[in-house]
């Protein structure tokens, strides 16, 4: 490992020495937040998360540049999933309890109100929390900490939304001991960058603080962000090529001549926070917060019964489903290229079919002789809901032991519930939808097994009715930590310990005919005790040269989202099918940095090594070999992430700043995990203890190498302009592990090139972009400020850069290209113009 670190360091030293601007940094720290996808680039049912805004205020030269310039290519610092980055609001951790990820969309549009934040990157010491592998960001919403005055802004953009209007007013701390801040914004786009997408968002924020006396302050914060957006999809290269659009979106189609998107996410989860700030004396303070967050989440999707797949990008609707030369190949190529309605949804036809699909349900709702005749829906829009309700309490005590030593201790408690269910969102002209499991109906002739709800069999469900599945995920946890920091003339030290308890269980509200005994009621509780230790050293060679070393070892309880085989239908744990206990994941990580600081030059070089052990990855998909829907459970997954980071900045005279940053790592699977495959609609275990040969394959899905070089000019008269050139490389497509098993290549002769095709991991082409940014402000008389900032990404309008891709889980080993990988292209030129007025 050491040898590798040296190599990495050498690699960066040999590179061009470039540097970048930095705010005045008091203490150097190794800071490693995580970058994730930007808003609207996600496909699927999950909420948006956009972290790049957060990282731009990081103190770390590498992190800040990575946050600003690398997010567009889905770069993730050190390859970490963003569940490793803790996000706090007034000390309350807001990462999701079921999968660990922070959902930034919960305060989307409140940019003014969430601007006060303290970013602690990586493993360094935080005043607010023990922290995660990727650091801690604490957003502070104390009304007294906002700049007094009013700010009104309007923004013009061309990504997921095109307009944003925002207004914020803050009183500052008034003589009567009160401080108030209110903020609100609207964001909208009739159509976003991608055809068929739209956006409407409304966010509001109010904070009040009362200083009771010199020792006590109370603060109340309430905020929420409502958003409704039409999603973009992801497709195969064939779809992009045939449609002539690298942002081809299969989710939309025309209804009555209007564009309608089938995948609409609607989220509104307001949060209330009450905080108590107690300055006990000059050296001690205690901050206690309680938070309640609740509200709706959900994404719509098409569902259909006894009809051909209505999605235009179903694999059989492509020319490639046929042999080249077949008349269907020619015909479909022609349709895809020249007939927009063929490659999009046909809403009018759904209505036409639904309005004349006469059907009789016998014994409707299980009532003998109750026969209901009407138009049964063949196509519907359903909404998959995930409604949240969560309480948190956190208390953090800080004691300055001396001028150079500090102790921080805290406790946290959380009780979380998410209610998962489906509702009929739109019957598309039909009278009702029959709530049965059509996949079970295919496999079983039994009228009981096919029921989604055996207490209401054969139920006709209407708009607003709950159907399909209905369960609650419960997670409770508590943790306590202590950490201390001491600074000496040549050396700074810190260390901390965290102990935590997690319990979770599933509560079923609907008994499913396939699993009548295990689908209803409370499951048994799963309990885990975990701990974490971390420590760091900063060796000050001189006042300009520093060596920093940090390390952490921690265990992490399995997430609810990974623990159950198929929580929609039953309470079976993955341990029930694998036969092995659920265990906490083990994580250890270390990094070593060299940091140089002078008035004109800053350089930081870091090497890191991180291992994850005993992880779980599970998914659901249609298995073509086994010819059924399966739960694919991979356990004992080990990963290793190692690499180096480089950040630099040079002040070239009073006005010019040259910046540079680069990160290069390897994010690899580090063992051969075990796979268990369970049939989704029965308790049958189809495959047990199959070995997946993925050691040293890349985790993929992001560039492992990213670099940027930038130049900024700060004019004395309140204007600035800058340019960045960014380069991304080493992008691997995310794996389908099932392709890397002995069973999948068993029938091929050993020199058959198809073996390499099945086993190989695709590496995507590197890409580069050029970004421009600038701004100017005017101070007007009467204390008014008027200004604008403009950033333009990918100014060369490069639309051919694939930033990410994944292998489909569904695959056919005799024809590897039948279910080809899907890819994301980076957007062409995009801009964000912000006009503001402050007084």
């Amino acid at each position, binding site marked *: 490992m050491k040898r590798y670190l040296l190599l990495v360091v050498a690699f960066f030293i040999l590179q061009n020495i470039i540097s970048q601007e930095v705010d005045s940094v008091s203490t150097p720290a190794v800071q490693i937040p995580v970058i994730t996808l930007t808003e609207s680039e996600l496909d699927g049912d999950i909420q948006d998360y956009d972290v790049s805004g957060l990282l731009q205020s990081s103190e770390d030269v590498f992190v800040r540049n990575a946050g600003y310039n690398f997010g567009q290519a889905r770069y993730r610092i050190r390859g970490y999933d963003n569940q490793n980055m803790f996000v706090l609001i007034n000390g309350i951790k807001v990462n999701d309890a079921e999968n660990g990820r922070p959902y930034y969309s919960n305060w989307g549009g409140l940019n003014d109100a969430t601007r006060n934040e303290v970013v602690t990157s990586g493993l360094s010491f935080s005043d607010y929390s023990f922290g995660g592998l990727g650091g801690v960001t604490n957003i502070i919403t104390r009304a007294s900490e906002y700049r007094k005055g*009013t700010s009104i802004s309007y923004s013009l953009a061309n990504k997921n939304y095109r307009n944003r*209007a925002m*207004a914020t*007013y803050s*009183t500052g701390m008034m003589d009567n001991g009160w401080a*108030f801040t*209110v903020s*609100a*914004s*609207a*964001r*909208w786009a*009739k159509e976003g960058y991608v055809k068929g997408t*739209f956006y*409407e*968002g*409304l966010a*509001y924020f109010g904070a009040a603080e009362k200083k009771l006396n010199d020792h006590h302050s109370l603060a109340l914060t309430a905020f929420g962000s409502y958003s*409704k957006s*039409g999603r973009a999809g992801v497709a195969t290269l064939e779809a992009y090529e045939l449609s002539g659009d690298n942002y081809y979106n299969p989710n939309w189609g025309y*209804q*009555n001549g*209007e564009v*309608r*998107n089938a995948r*609409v996410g609607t989220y509104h989860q307001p949060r209330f926070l009450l905080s108590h700030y107690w300055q006990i004396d000059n050296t001690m303070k205690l901050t206690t917060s309680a938070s309640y967050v609740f509200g709706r989440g959900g994404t719509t999707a098409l569902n259909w*019964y*006894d*009809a*051909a797949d209505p999605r235009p990008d179903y694999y059989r609707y492509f020319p490639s489903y046929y042999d080249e030369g077949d008349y269907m190949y020619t015909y479909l190529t022609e349709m895809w290229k020249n007939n927009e309605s063929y490659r999009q949804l046909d*809403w*009018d*036809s759904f*209505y*036409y*079919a639904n*309005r*004349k*699909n*006469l*059907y*009789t349900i016998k014994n409707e709702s299980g009532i003998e002789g109750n*026969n209901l*005749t009407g138009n049964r829906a*063949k196509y519907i829009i359903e909404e998959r809901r995930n409604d949240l309700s969560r309480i948190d309490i956190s208390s953090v005590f800080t004691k300055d032991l001396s001028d150079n030593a500090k102790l921080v201790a805290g406790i946290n408690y959380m009780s979380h519930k998410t209610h998962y269910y489906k509702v009929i969102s739109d019957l598309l*002209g039909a009278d009702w939808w029959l709530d049965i499991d059509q996949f079970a*109906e*295919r496999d*079983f*002739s039994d009228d009981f097994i096919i029921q989604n709800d055996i207490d209401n069999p054969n139920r006709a469900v209407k708009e607003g009715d709950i159907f399909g599945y209905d369960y609650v995920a419960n997670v409770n946890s508590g943790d306590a930590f202590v950490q201390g920091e001491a600074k000496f003339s040549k050396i700074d030290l810190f260390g901390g310990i965290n102990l935590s308890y997690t319990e979770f269980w599933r509560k079923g509200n609907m008994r499913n005919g396939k699993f009548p005994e295990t689908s209803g009621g409370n499951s048994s509780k799963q309990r885990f005790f975990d701990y974490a230790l971390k420590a760091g050293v900063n060796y000050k060679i001189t006042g300009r040269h520093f060596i920093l070393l940090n390390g952490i070892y921690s265990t992490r309880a399995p997430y609810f989202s990974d623990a159950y085989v198929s929580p929609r239908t039953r309470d079976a744990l993955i341990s029930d099918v694998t036969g092995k206990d659920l265990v906490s994941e083990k994580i250890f990580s270390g990094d070593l940095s060299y940091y140089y600081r002078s008035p004109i030059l800053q350089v930081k070089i870091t090497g890191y090594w991180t291992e994850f052990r005993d992880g779980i990855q599970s998914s659901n998909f249609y298995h073509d070999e086994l010819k059924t829907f399966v739960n694919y459970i991979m356990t004992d997954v080990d990963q290793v992430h190692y690499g180096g980071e480089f950040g630099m900045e040079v002040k070239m005279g009073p006005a010019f700043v040259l910046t540079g940053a680069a990160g290069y790592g390897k994010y690899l699977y580090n063992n051969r995990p075990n796979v268990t495959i369970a049939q989704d609609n029965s308790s049958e275990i189809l495959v047990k203890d199959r070995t997946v040969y993925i050691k040293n394959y890349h985790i993929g899905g992001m560039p492992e190498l990213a670099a940027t070089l930038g130049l900024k000019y700060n004019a004395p008269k309140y204007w600035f302009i800058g340019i960045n050139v960014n380069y991304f490389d080493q992008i691997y497509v995310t794996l389908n592990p099932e392709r890397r098993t002995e069973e999948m290549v068993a029938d091929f002769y050993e020199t058959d090139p198809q073996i390499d095709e099945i086993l190989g991991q695709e590496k995507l082409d590197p890409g580069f972009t050029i970004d421009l940014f600038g701004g100017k402000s005017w101070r007007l008389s009467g204390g008014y400020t008027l200004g604008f900032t403009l950033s333009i990404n990918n100014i060369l309008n490069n639309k051919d850069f694939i930033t990410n891709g994944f292998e489909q889980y569904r695959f056919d080993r005799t024809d590897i290209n039948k279910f080809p990988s899907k890819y994301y292209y980076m957007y062409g030129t995009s801009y964000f113009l912000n006009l503001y007025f402050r007084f």
Partner: protein
Amino acid sequence: MEKITYKIIIITIVLSALLFSGCIHNNFDEPPEKEFPAGMVMTIQDIEQIYYDSVAPTMRPYKFKDDFSVYAVVTMDDKSGNIYKNAYIQDATKGINLRLLSSGGIYEGDSILLNLRDLVLSDYNGMLQLDSVHVDNNILKLKTGVYVVPEKVRIGQITDWHVSRLIEVEDVQFINSDVGNIYANPDVSENRTLENCNGNTLIVRNSGYSNFASEIIPRYRGSIVGVLGKYGTDYQLYIRSIDEVKLVKPRCGEVDTIFSETFDETVRDVPIDFTGWKNIGETGTIKWVGTVLSGNNPAAQIKNDENENTSWLILPKQTISENVAMKFVTLAYNVAGAQLQVLISADYNGGDSPQDANWTVLPATIATSLESRVDSGEIDLPQGEIYIAFKFSAATSSRAQYFLDDIIIYLKD
């Protein structure tokens, strides 16, 4: 504070206005109702005529380009998996096979108007089919639950007229080599063969994907409902549901005995003690004993001992399936004041107190003299696990005697 309130109000107003301008995707107009185009109505017979006029001479499929429609009833859908992307419809004139672009969507009992536009008329090895049926576009459902009564037919009576129609083939059994096999092995379609007692045969075509593929083929005889297909010159039957395979009679020329007892193993005057039987004196001590009737024919006998008697002779537990009956023979002597009943119980526990169980009297003809052997007549037995008992009761000093012989439980013809 007034100034603050003022500012908050302004912000609220501005945002409300923005919200209204932003809410653009809440409601979509439903597309207008579109009438189903019926065009000219014809019969399935007419379609067949088009086949003979246009397809048969040229050997090329005929594609309907205009709105022609047919009223028909769906007789078979693909829910059971025995056919796939297929359905059969019929009207008064004929039946025809529909080949669907995607599976499902129309169901047995649907009364439909089928628009022929874009459908392709052809034959598949001798059987007419309408191909490329897009259920959403081509079919209007008029009524549900219109279940066609299958036409009863014997194998020898089947003609081309029956092709693609729902029939009930009477008096058939699977050939010996098929009996005990399954209907079809996984993932393949397989032929099984029906025969009747005259030796006529009919193919039954079963898909390995059908939901009854792994059921065991019964050895009995009876009737089967299905849709008739044709492949080349062979007729073949498609089963819709395993419930419509009603084979419950003995095979041709066989008597199918489930249980019999002729009492040949008895010894004169020794109480009957066969395995599984019960021979109980409930009131008094007398039991059924062995005896020999004229012609050296062993039988069972019970005789009043001048005290009051109630005695039971109970057969071993029987598992009775559909279409099963029982017979026995009795003789009697001096039966005034005495009675022999044949009883059935589903809750008797096999123990020594049969009187505690619920018993039902079966209708049987019982002898009253020694003049001749009296046949009980065919007694239908209910399905299930049951016990059958002969209960003798006699008043004091009756000296009554009953003789019992040739008990048989069998599959009815």
